[in-house]
């Protein structure tokens, strides 16, 4: 029984594509068959973050329009063979996606994979609504920052009204993935705390990804952080998030500020 997940946020630049790649890598390593699908037509980037940018021949639009068969467009990951990528088109725009075409492709993917992870474009328009329409569950990627939280709230409203599940009167699971979290700044009261964001958005927490050099490094190298640097704190958070997606109940560890003796002695000034 396949599960379709949309990774969405409303706001751009919060870490949707990075998180799609990292969660895909984590689920694939647990032996599940995973495909990550780039819905950001015209501004594709999942291929780049996955390190498959030079292997793209056919894309989602070609399959939607019937110019290529699904197996021709799927790119199997070279590091782990349970992970595949369906790239977006770079030259077309979102209007090339049709609701019927997307429904057919998602239907075909459901037969081949255990997990279909859809990387949504930013915004609340057609591309984003098509990416979320067939989802069984959503990962709402949020930064602890006012504009990101507001946009996430808007997206949560759309998930509850504009998805196939919502239209059928069914529940769509929504999970909060808090990314680029800086525990030191949250402790100092400079950044919204996890509890603040949870209280405001009122959806369960999937994980907290600390702001980390490892994530940027992974993007630079074209390797999901869960494949390239699995022992880094960010990768560990993504592995835990993936286990929660599979239904495990784990206590979410909030990355704590590690203050040395001098830091404690001089308090906040010293850390700042």
């Amino acid at each position, binding site marked *: 029984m396949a599960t379709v997940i949309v990774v969405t946020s409303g706001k751009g630049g919060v870490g949707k594509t990075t998180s799609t790649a990292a969660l895909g890598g984590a689920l694939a390593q647990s032996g599940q068959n995973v495909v990550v699908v780039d819905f950001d037509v015209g501004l594709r980037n999942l291929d780049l973050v996955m390190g498959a940018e030079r292997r793209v021949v056919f894309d989602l639009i070609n399959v939607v329009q019937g110019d290529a068969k699904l197996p021709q467009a799927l790119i199997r990951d070279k590091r782990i063979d349970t992970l595949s990528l369906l790239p977006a088109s770079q030259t077309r725009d979102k209007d090339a996606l049709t609701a019927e075409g997307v429904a057919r492709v998602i239907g075909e993917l459901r037969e081949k994979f255990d997990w279909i992870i859809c990387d949504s474009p930013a915004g609340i328009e057609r591309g984003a609504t098509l990416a979320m329409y067939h989802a069984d569950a959503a990962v709402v990627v949020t930064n602890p*920052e*006012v504009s990101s*939280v*507001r946009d996430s*709230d*808007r997206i949560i*409203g759309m998930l509850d009204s504009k998805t196939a599940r919502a239209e059928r009167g069914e529940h769509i699971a929504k999970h909060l993935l808090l990314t680029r979290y800086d525990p030191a700044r*949250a402790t*100092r*009261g*400079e*950044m*919204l*705390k996890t509890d*603040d964001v949870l209280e*405001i958005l009122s959806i369960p927490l999937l994980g907290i990804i600390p702001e980390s050099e490892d994530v940027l490094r992974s993007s630079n190298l074209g390797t999901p952080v869960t494949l390239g640097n699995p022992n880094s704190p960010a990768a560990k958070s993504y592995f835990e998030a993936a286990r929660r997606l599979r239904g495990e109940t784990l206590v979410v560890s909030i990355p704590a500020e590690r203050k040395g003796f001098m830091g404690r002695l001089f308090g*906040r000034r010293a850390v700042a």
Partner: protein
Amino acid sequence: MNLMGLFRRRNSAPVARERLQVLLAHERAFVGQSDLLAVLQEEIIAVIAKHVSIERDRVQIKLDRGDPISTLEIDVEVPSAAAAAALRGRPAARPAMVSG
């Protein structure tokens, strides 16, 4: 002065949290009702016009969103002559003129 500055900078997160709570409470309530004010304006004009002759563009409606309460401010300019006529007890059934 310096200490106050430090204090303020350190505590920007609670301000963010409060602003978001107020804003989102309203955005959730008014989603799909972005024309609420326009509807209110029409209906208020219709009610007043039943009794007093008023001009459409002399009715101002403002919504100020706050916590714990919001205020709906309705400002209706009634020409003195019309108000006096209404007070003298003109028959309510008689339709009043609405311009605009």
